[in-house]
């Protein structure tokens, strides 16, 4: 029995039966990272000292407390946009390549209280802007199923670390699909939670009205355990909701599953479509009612998304001015020079592109045409979903139109990269939750099914995903 293959639940059982200790499991993961990560490049930093100290504390906790928690002693990785006190946090950017986090993100604080073990910080597209980690200033994360292909993004390192057995689970963040897409490409489970259920305090901000931290895990049950631990109201996040996760049994029988026709029009790979439809048929065989629905504003959603995100990003990234932290150009002769040079040197091409789009969309003369219009579209997209949920319980869709593409394939065409978010983006505009569940492979490359739910219905998503997971096993 290889401890690296065990889920959170199985490790928890093993700890209870004293089959192994957290220190042993942690050492096994650290060893494996040393051997594997040269090929995968999932990690930007491996926090060996921290991990071993936490494992030791976890083992002590397990000795003293018979009812130790599910996550106690289990090693996980953290997307390098989430602050872990005393560890480097780069957001995948040269701007922050030497930045050391002065405090813990709320989710990290919560997991520390659970005696969880952090093995390292994972690679991401710069400032979470991207769908493949090719925009990282440091390295490109390879897909563990085919290292000539991308792991997806922006939480590529997170998903790859779980798929490559370098961590038992991972924390990623999702703004337009950044948990679900890499989870789909790497064949692991990823949850994008309802906006407001997980605190954003300590997450390096991209688009404040969309960002959410969420779990990437080997199984649905694991994802549920992580979500239960990290979710909840946080006084330090003004947008966090008064939310407490409660599990509830869900049966496929009698469930109304919506299938949006706009998500199955041209552009989707035939084999991906076949796998999604197969998953839908499996649910139908178990008694679910499949109902075709329409989300008529789908085609406008991506344009609106790619105005709103850069607009919010241009505002959020204004803080990187070389004054309080981050790269600072000391050769500038005046204050303005310090700003423009630091930012010119610190930001890579994608942040620059998005800052310019956002600045343009918000600038005088253009605000109404772009930003205001995009917010109107957002209202329509939200209404499409709330309308649909009066008829159906959940919506099934693909996560991505294609399986993992080759490294470099889309790098020269930013617009084609943007369109990778076509199924995952609209969900974020509405703020509703969605889960990516592996449902098969195309030429050895994993494909994920997206299960979309209404606000605060993560319990439904977990229940349905778990039922399907068992049927597909």
């Amino acid at each position, binding site marked *: 029995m290889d401890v690296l293959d065990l889920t959170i639940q199985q490790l928890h059982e093993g700890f209870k039966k004293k089959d192994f200790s957290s220190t042993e499991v942690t050492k096994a993961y650290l060893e494996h990272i040393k051997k594997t990560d040269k090929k995968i490049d999932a990690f930007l930093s491996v926090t060996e000292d921290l991990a071993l100290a936490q494992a030791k504390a976890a083992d002590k906790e397990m000795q003293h407390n018979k009812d130790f928690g599910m996550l106690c002693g289990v090693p996980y990785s953290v997307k390098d946009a989430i602050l872990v006190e005393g560890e480097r946090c780069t957001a995948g950017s040269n701007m922050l390549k030497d*930045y*050391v986090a*002065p*405090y813990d993100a709320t989710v990290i604080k919560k997991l520390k209280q659970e005696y969880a073990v952090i093995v390292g910080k994972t690679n991401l597209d710069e400032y979470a802007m991207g769908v493949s980690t090719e925009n990282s200033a440091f390295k490109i994360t390879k897909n563990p199923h085919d290292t000539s292909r991308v792991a997806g993004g922006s939480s590529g390192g997170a998903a790859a670390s779980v798929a490559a057995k370098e961590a038992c689970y991972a924390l990623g963040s999702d703004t337009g699909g950044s948990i679900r897409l890499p989870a789909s490409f790497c064949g692991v489970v990823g949850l994008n939670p309802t*906006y*407001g259920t997980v605190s954003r305090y300590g997450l390096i901000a991209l688009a404040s*009205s969309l960002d959410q931290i969420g779990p990437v895990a080997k199984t649905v049950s694991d994802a549920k355990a992580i979500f239960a631990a990290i979710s909840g109201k946080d006084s330090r996040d*003004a*947008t966090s909701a008064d939310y407490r996760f409660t599990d509830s049994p869900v049966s496929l029988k009698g469930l109304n599953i919506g299938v949006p026709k706009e998500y199955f029009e041209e552009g989707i790979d035939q084999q991906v479509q076949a796998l999604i439809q197969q998953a839908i048929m499996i649910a139908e065989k178990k008694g679910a009612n499949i109902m075709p629905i329409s989300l008529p*504003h789908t*085609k*406008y959603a991506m*344009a609106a998304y*790619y*105005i709103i995100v850069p607009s919010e990003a241009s505002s959020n990234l*204004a803080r990187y*001015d*070389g*004054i*309080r*932290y*981050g790269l*600072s150009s*000391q050769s500038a002769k*005046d*204050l*303005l020079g*310090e700003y*423009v*040079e630091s*930012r*010119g040197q610190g*930001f890579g*091409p994608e942040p*620059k*592109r998005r*800052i*310019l*789009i956002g*600045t*343009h969309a918000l600038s*005088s*003369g*253009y605000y109404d*045409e*772009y930003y*205001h*219009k*995009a*917010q*109107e*579209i957002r*209202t*329509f*997209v*939200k*209404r499409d979903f709330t309308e649909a949920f009066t008829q159906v319980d959940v919506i099934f869709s693909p996560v991505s139109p294609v399986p993992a593409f080759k490294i470099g394939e889309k790098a020269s065409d*930013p*617009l084609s990269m*943007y369109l990778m978010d076509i199924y995952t983006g609209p969900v974020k505009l509405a703020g509703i939750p969605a889960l990516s569940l592996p449902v098969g492979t195309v030429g050895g490359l994993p494909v994920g099914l997206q299960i979309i739910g209404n606000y605060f219905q993560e319990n439904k998503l977990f229940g349905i995903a778990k039922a399907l997971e068992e049927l597909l096993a």
Partner: protein
Amino acid sequence: MPGSRSCALLQGYPRTRAELSSWYPVENFDGDFKIIIKRVSKNRQKTIRQNSSTGVISKGDVLHIAKLARLELTEAEVEKLQKELSSILDYFALLQEVPSLVNVAEGIHAGIEATRPDLARDTNEGFAKALLAAAPNTKDGYIKVKQILN
């Protein structure tokens, strides 16, 4: 303009009435700077409107936006971004197909009333030290910046 010297950030932009009148033809100079700025932006909007219908963005536009964003770009970057932004802005044109909406606030996560008293939190000295450690220039527990006023 009040405090024009402190507005070093408006480098390259008109800072006095004389400069302003040489930049933009404004007929009735009534002495109130706020009204002048409104007229200036209206004139600029007219020129911008003429360009935006083509969806094409000029190099001058890219440089203007970069100035607003406080971003230094190389010649090569400007050229590349001009092409990329043009195609992206072209794509945005389809949004105009959707009719206007009266109440936009519905789309934004509205209705959150979460404020706290504006008071400093009590933290240990170590935290303040860690924050200052990240800054490139400090002195006596302060962050040091370049001269703001000339």
